[in-house]
């Protein structure tokens, strides 16, 4: 497995990139050239210079510093959302797929209801209902997305549920937790990793969208979506303001999507059998 990972250039490259971004975010206070909140109205919309490597925004704040500090809320919230979604989705999917019967009926009917709402509208509805705040954005994203994962993970579980090694375990009375945790969960781990990776990309976009609309991370905090929001006011006079956070978001999301595909190749269970 480790060998296949190192052989897959995309996997190595994307994981490396993500780790690098995460490190930049963690180390932001030490590597950022300026204070991301320090406004200097006299130097607004400055172009690149030694002091401000990427220029300044409408309040004269250093764009590079804001971008670096912005990694924390952007990536952190996205990963938090992913953990919540995958956790809830995997739990529900495992229970529904393995236990069947009324457990499956209840979970899947709830999932059906969840899936019949347009997800974007649901996010707005949930945020509007709970109030605008970061926690509520994460909650809303988990709330609307878990059903997708529950459904996909249940399908994965169903493939393995009737495999002989699980039938054997059930026959000799192996405890359910052992079957779920040691047999089923590792069997669907590859699917989970792919889903998780794609989900982070999706969450970044969604959280940035909400921040852009003013429903997520609030003004002075340097979140990438919020930075886009501030930049859109000067779209016609200073279009370059949107380019930096825009490119950052697109690049990060693409990397997560690429990583999802690469992980799928690396973890493909067909090759495990070979």
């Amino acid at each position, binding site marked *: 497995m480790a060998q296949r990972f190192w052989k897959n250039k995309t996997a190595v490259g994307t994981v490396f990139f993500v780790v690098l971004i995460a490190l930049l975010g963690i180390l932001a206070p030490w590597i950022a050239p300026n204070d991301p909140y320090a406004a200097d109205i006299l130097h607004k919309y400055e172009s690149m210079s030694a002091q401000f490597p990427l220029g300044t925004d409408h309040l004269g704040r250093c764009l590079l510093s804001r971008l670096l500090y912005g990694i924390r809320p952007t990536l952190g919230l996205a990963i938090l959302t992913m953990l919540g979604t995958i956790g809830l989705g995997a739990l529900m999917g495992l229970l529904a797929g393995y236990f069947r019967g009324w457990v499956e009926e209840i979970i899947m009917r709830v999932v059906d209801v969840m899936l019949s709402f347009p997800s974007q509208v649901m996010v707005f509805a949930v945020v509007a209902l709970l109030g605008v705040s970061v926690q509520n954005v994460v909650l809303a994203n988990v709330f609307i997305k878990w059903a997708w994962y529950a459904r996909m993970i249940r399908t994965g579980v169903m493939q393995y549920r009737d*495999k*002989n*090694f699980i*039938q*054997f*375990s*059930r*026959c*000799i*009375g*192996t405890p359910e937790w*052992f079957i779920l945790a*040691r*047999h089923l969960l*590792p*069997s669907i781990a590859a699917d989970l990793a792919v889903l998780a990776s794609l989900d982070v990309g999706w969450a970044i976009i969604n959280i940035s969208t909400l921040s852009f609309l003013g429903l997520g991370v609030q003004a002075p905090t340097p979140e990438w979506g919020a930075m886009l929001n501030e930049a859109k006011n000067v779209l016609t006079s200073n279009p370059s303001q949107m380019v930096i956070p825009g490119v950052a978001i697109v690049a990060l999301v693409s990397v997560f999507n690429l990583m999802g595909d690469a992980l799928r190749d690396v973890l493909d*269970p067909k090759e*495990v*059998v*070979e």
Partner: protein
Amino acid sequence: MITVEHVCVSFRSEHQKKWFGSSRTQVLFDVNLTIPKGSCVGILGESGSGKSTLGRVICGLLKPDSGNVSIDGVSIYGDKKGKKLLQQKLSVVFQDYTTSANPRFSMKEILLEGIRARERKGEQVKDVDAELSHLLSLVGLDDSFLPRFPHELSGGQLQRVCIARAVACKPELILFDEAISSLDAHTQVQIMDLLQELKEKLSLTYLFITHDLTSITYLCDEVLFLYHGHVTDHRPVSTLSQTTDDYAKKLLQSIFIYDNEKLDEAAATAAGL
């Protein structure tokens, strides 16, 4: 030790005549069977006749529509206690060895699952490593297999490990669902010899499901013919050639079409003559 009484099983049909219909196809019709302690009972039938389904009913994995399965007089679908008793006394080996073992488990982990089942019965296994090599030696393998994964073993070797795993639970009854059918002829004989040896050593009871008459004559004391879910004949292997049932006769003829005497010979061997 196991009694199967009037078991009927049906599955929901794939093709429903009505929308949201619930028509069912019956797979087993009023099956009766007793497995005496220490015996080896064979179930013979062509594929699709419901042998595996009957096996799953006996394993406690599939509740029959009607009828009763009991172990030592306790009904296994009645309450938790019966099921627990069954789980303590029964173990299985399946046909398809490629899916019988978790591809992510090493042989050690595979056997450990069986040993843990034994510990649940209240038996202490003090020296786990010694027990692991004992189990492997029972099935003619050595310790070097412990760290290996299923895909690193041949079919025969993996099937041996599956047998070791079944034995590791210290069962009284082992169910073999076409356990040797997908192996080549030479390995089949080896495994059958192994099974016979284990049966005597550990005083086990076998339920042997197969579509192959030769292995029945080799191993079993009694045979039950299953045809499209109906039991057509049930007799000791020694009187196999005197079967009165048309289907059983046809089956015998189709297998021994060239040499009818071989059957009597085989039956005679089985009867210990």
